[in-house]
């Protein structure tokens, strides 16, 4: 039997051929699922982004708009531009803090402190708490008039702060909540990375006369770079797609000061029935995430190799 593109020319025992056939069948199932549930919707969304579609009219009746949706978003949609800026700030603040705090706490938990397991559980608890529950809890905690944080602040003689209800503080407060929510996850990741570094390296560094800082700088950090890459990339992707926390706490208010791209996308699609424009937003966000991810991977991976 001749070989084909799907059946390579390999030793032709009947048993092996049968096995190969079933191997392709089993591989085909997830590939088909991927095409139907991932590639298909992505391509469809790309097609929709070039049209005006309200999600209610038949797909065949969508009026063609070309790149109008993209041009509108990038030149005239002030809320989108605002949301983009907010989302970047959210990502920069969240990723920076989660990386630094995650590593810092992981170093502490990796040392011989008392009640290490209890600390780990405590830090991880917000990760498994429902985001909606956290949002409601922090809405009370940061309330301008009755919130416990303001009670503490005023007891210290400082002025009361609006936090989530203030246009200049809402986004910062959301970043704080997101850090509280996710830092435990990154602590666990860093902890796993730290525990994967052989003790021999530290012993060798000590023999060479390295102190704690030098051991951290020249042993821990270089060997943690792959973990750092994972943390930074996944955290950035997640932060740029933030939705649930904002939806449940401020809804983008006051006056869009905490609006994020995905929340604006949701409103545009389901409140204003502009699926074409919302799809264009999704593609712009995708391009941004892709660009940032490639840059991060190149920067951190290349440096990891250099080290």
């Amino acid at each position: 039997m001749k070989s084909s593109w799907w059946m390579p020319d390999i030793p032709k025992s009947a048993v092996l051929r049968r096995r190969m056939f079933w191997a392709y069948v089993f591989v085909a199932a997830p590939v088909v699922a991927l095409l139907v549930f991932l590639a298909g919707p992505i391509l469809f969304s790309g097609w929709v982004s070039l049209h005006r579609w309200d999600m209610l009219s038949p797909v065949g009746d969508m009026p063609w708009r070309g790149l109008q949706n993209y041009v509108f978003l990038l030149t005239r949609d002030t809320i989108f531009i605002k949301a983009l800026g907010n989302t970047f700030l959210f990502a920069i603040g969240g990723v920076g803090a989660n990386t630094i705090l995650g590593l810092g706490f992981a170093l502490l938990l990796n040392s011989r402190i008392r009640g290490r397991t209890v600390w780990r559980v405590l830090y991880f608890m917000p990760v498994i708490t429902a985001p909606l529950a956290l949002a409601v809890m922090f809405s009370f905690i940061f309330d301008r008039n009755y919130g416990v944080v303001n009670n503490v602040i005023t007891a210290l003689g400082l002025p009361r702060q609006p936090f989530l209800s203030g246009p200049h503080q809402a986004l910062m407060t959301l970043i704080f909540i997101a850090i509280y929510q996710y830092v435990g996850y990154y602590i666990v990741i860093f902890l796993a990375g730290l525990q994967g570094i052989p003790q021999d390296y530290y012993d060798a560094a000590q023999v060479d006369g390295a102190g704690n800082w030098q051991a951290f700088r020249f042993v821990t950090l270089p060997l943690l770079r792959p973990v750092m890459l994972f943390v930074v990339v996944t955290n950035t992707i997640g932060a740029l797609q933030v939705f649930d926390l904002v939806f449940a706490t401020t809804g983008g208010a006051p006056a869009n000061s905490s609006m994020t791209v995905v929340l604006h996308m949701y409103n545009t699609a389901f409140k204003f029935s502009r699926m074409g424009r919302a799809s264009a937003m999704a593609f712009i966000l995708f391009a941004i995430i892709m660009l940032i991810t490639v840059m991060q991977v190149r920067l951190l991976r290349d440096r990891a190799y250099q080290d």
Partner: protein
Amino acid sequence: MSLKRSVLVFLSLALVLSFGAATLAQDTTLTMLTHWGTEDQLAAQQAIIDAYMAEHPDVVIELVTVDFGELRAKIITGRTAGISADVYHFYHLWLPDFVNAGVLAEPPQDSLTYIDENVAQGTIDAVSTSDGQTWGYPTEVNPYLLVYNKRLLAEAGYDAPPANWEELKEIAAAITQVDDSGAISQVGLGVMPGWDSGIVHPFSALLFSNGGNYLSADRAMAEFNSPQGIETLQLYADLVASGGTDASINGLANFPSGTVGMVIMAPWWRATLRAAEGVDFETEVGVAEIPVGPSGDAPSSIAYTWLFAVDSSSPNKPAAWDFIHWMNAEHNDGAGSAIGDFLVNALGAIPSFNHDQAAFADSMSDHYVSAFVAASAYARPEQIVAGGQEIKTLLQAEIEAVLAGMTTPEDALASVEMQANAILEEQRMMAEE
């Protein structure tokens, strides 16, 4: 024929016959989607459905409710997924969008005649498109009025609600209480940030009471960016500056707890206020006309409505319209309709149909609802237009920006006007394509 084969043939025949019989006797199943989701409201709706099903044993009705904030998305995604409800109850502002997209089925002539004969023309217009086509049975009519806490006004030294904006500002500032730490324990006028209707409808009521307009009469242009509109938004800025209002105290959430002096609100709030612990509904809750602005000459207001309609893709349109008609029709003289009873007694809302307004006049005669009934005679219906929800949301954000001190009334209204007119222009072009 062997015994085994005979049994097989018999079973096959039985299967085919039972399937055929089941198909012939299949019930008509209708799904009704509403936003009335509290326990009491669900029970009241189910009672109506059960009564209809008892009279129509061949019809099964399933009730689906979602929060108002998700209702539009539920309708849209249901349609896209091919699992839309047969009967919708929805906010009339969405009507032009739904009609343009072919979501709704035209009511049968009998229904249109019934609505024409039993509903005030203004309310019919509110559930009709600009071509005069009526698309469903109107339900609740919701004008906005000034709801106030008599006790808080009295404690501030006032025995009557404000009649004009100067009085509104004065009384609101007098009611507000801020403690030494800067915490606001009581606010004069409660606003409702984060909720489009809670922001835009009170603004519209004040705008109309100041002689302004929302859209032009032909609904082709935004008209809120007028001297009257700027005065209205300046009122908000003045109230913030004087401490008469503060966006951190939500009127909707805090009036029932007795910490808000005044709120501009709709009648359906009655059930909440009756159950409130911070304010006594009978003795402390007052309702007054919207204070008149400096450019206005009489109190005015805005009224919105909802409607029952049928999905155009429903396979059971006649049954769906029959069910809607049954809910809204008066079956015994003077008894009112099932929905009228629900609206008045479960919600505290004003029903659209004349027979319901007559039948439940006693229930609507309390000091609270009666004021709204009087206002429904002069309140201007919310102008519905394709893209209306988007315009409303944009205006909401700008009003909130003024409340937050982020922009001026002039800049806020100019910005929304430009965007609103672009949306209206786009919708016109879409209609022409």
